[in-house]
């Protein structure tokens, strides 16, 4: 079970309490097929550079073949020095990152220390492993803390990988192609931003589930710079979002006033108690 409070030590070892319940639930559905959660195609990437970490993501959220959200925010706040990109089921990534964020805030207040990236990774890995892949969240965590610049990825089954450059989501192979070709250690800030932008752009171009704008988040010792959008899509939507008309736009041709004759039938007074 997800622990709402990090101060409670979870029981040691594996927890398979929900296995029996899940089997029973499957029996309730026709054909034993539980409903499949909706996935959002995504391209997310992260790069470690000289002074910190750059995270990038596209902004398309899809519901089967329809774009549900063109300006979806996939880079989630975890701590002032830690951000997390999420791919997979949108609800799962949102809730999981919120949980980790509140856990680390409690830890921060309790210990008077800034949270470290490994803490977020451990909490996430622990939780995702306990749910055996049922929480469909593939996350890229990046941040800068007292021990250095870090970039980790946590898979939905709870496996952790750490590399100087990473990409996840349905567009990850396209982005990884760019990263494998152009990544160098100790990049400068502008080079790193450009590399991530090109990588996400490759995902947007080559993957149907990714698209629209590119968001970037730069994290350094000084803090985080969340640039949304970093690059706007070439295909702009020119429809107006709001349709407001000045009073007088529609001409009034005739006006007819009909007074309603009302009769008082009953009058009651109720005292208001202001004590």
């Amino acid at each position, binding site marked *: 079970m997800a622990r709402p409070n990090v101060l409670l030590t979870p029981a040691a*070892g594996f927890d398979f309490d929900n296995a029996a319940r899940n089997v029973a639930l499957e029996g309730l559905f026709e054909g034993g097929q539980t409903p499949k959660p909706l996935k959002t195609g995504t391209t997310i990437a992260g790069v470690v550079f000289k002074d910190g970490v750059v995270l990038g993501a596209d902004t398309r959220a899809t519901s089967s*073949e329809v774009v549900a959200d063109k300006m979806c925010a996939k880079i989630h706040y975890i701590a002032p020095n830690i951000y997390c990109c999420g791919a997979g089921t949108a609800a799962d990534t949102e809730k999981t990152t919120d949980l980790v964020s509140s856990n680390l805030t409690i830890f921060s207040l309790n210990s008077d220390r800034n949270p470290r990236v490994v803490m977020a990774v451990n909490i996430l890995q622990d939780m995702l492993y306990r749910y055996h892949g049922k929480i469909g969240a593939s996350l890229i965590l990046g941040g800068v803390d007292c021990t250095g610049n870090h970039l980790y990825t946590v898979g939905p*089954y709870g*496996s952790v*990988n750490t590399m100087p450059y990473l990409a996840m989501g349905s567009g990850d192979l396209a982005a990884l192609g760019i990263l494998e070709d152009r990544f160098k250690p100790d990049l400068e800030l502008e080079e790193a931003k450009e590399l991530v932008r090109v990588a996400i752009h490759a995902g947007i171009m080559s993957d149907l589930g990714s698209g629209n704008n590119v968001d970037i988040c730069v994290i350094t010792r000084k803090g985080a710079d969340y640039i949304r959008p970093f690059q706007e899509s070439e295909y702009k939507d020119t429809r107006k979002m709001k349709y407001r008309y000045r009073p007088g736009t529609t001409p009034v041709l005739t006006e007819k006033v009909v007074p309603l004759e009302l009769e008082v039938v009953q009058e009651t007074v109720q005292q208001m108690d202001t004590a």
Partner: protein
Amino acid sequence: MLGETEPEWLSEEVKTGTTIIAIEFNAGVVLGSDSRVSAGASVVNRVMNKLSPLHDKIYCALSGSAADAQTIAEIVNYQLDVHSTEIGEDPQVRSAATLVRNISYKYKEELSAHLIVAGWDRRDGGQVFATLNGLLTRQPFAIGGSGSSYVYGFVDAEYRRGMSKEECQQFVVNTLSLAMNRDGSSGGVAYIVTIDEQGTEEKVILGNDLPTFVDQ
């Protein structure tokens, strides 16, 4: 686009199709692994170090499901830490292997991971233990993972008792190289860890520097 399903590897469990090997020599052990982590047909990580420390002089080699193997290694790392504080000295390799075996056996239906535990302790020197499916057996050498099937013949024919440290390291590198060439789920670079009384030495051998055999 309508009715198109996403690629399977996106939702498939991440496995470490692997080659792992551990071998004991007169004064210690040598562990070796490849570095490929796959999810279906996609390589998720091409440089993963599958040799995970359980204690200063005890390492384990991971194979099977990446999440299961990593989690077992982390849990046993914690348990060994507590145990070594309780006994006031470095733990025995057999203790580490027993802890791994206990988890592998108790949850054998739910888990899909095989760890080879190897290390050095003061009492028995270098030791290698296999913990497949919950058994515990000490062996002069052990191989595991999907790539091991291709090299059983090689290791059975080439292993000799009483090899020196350098000969063992070469044996491990040769085995890994042969397996990585034949097994699609193994590849990348080779990680070698040598543990003896003096300490622990970790080494990476890049793809180009691996030994080549016939037809290469």
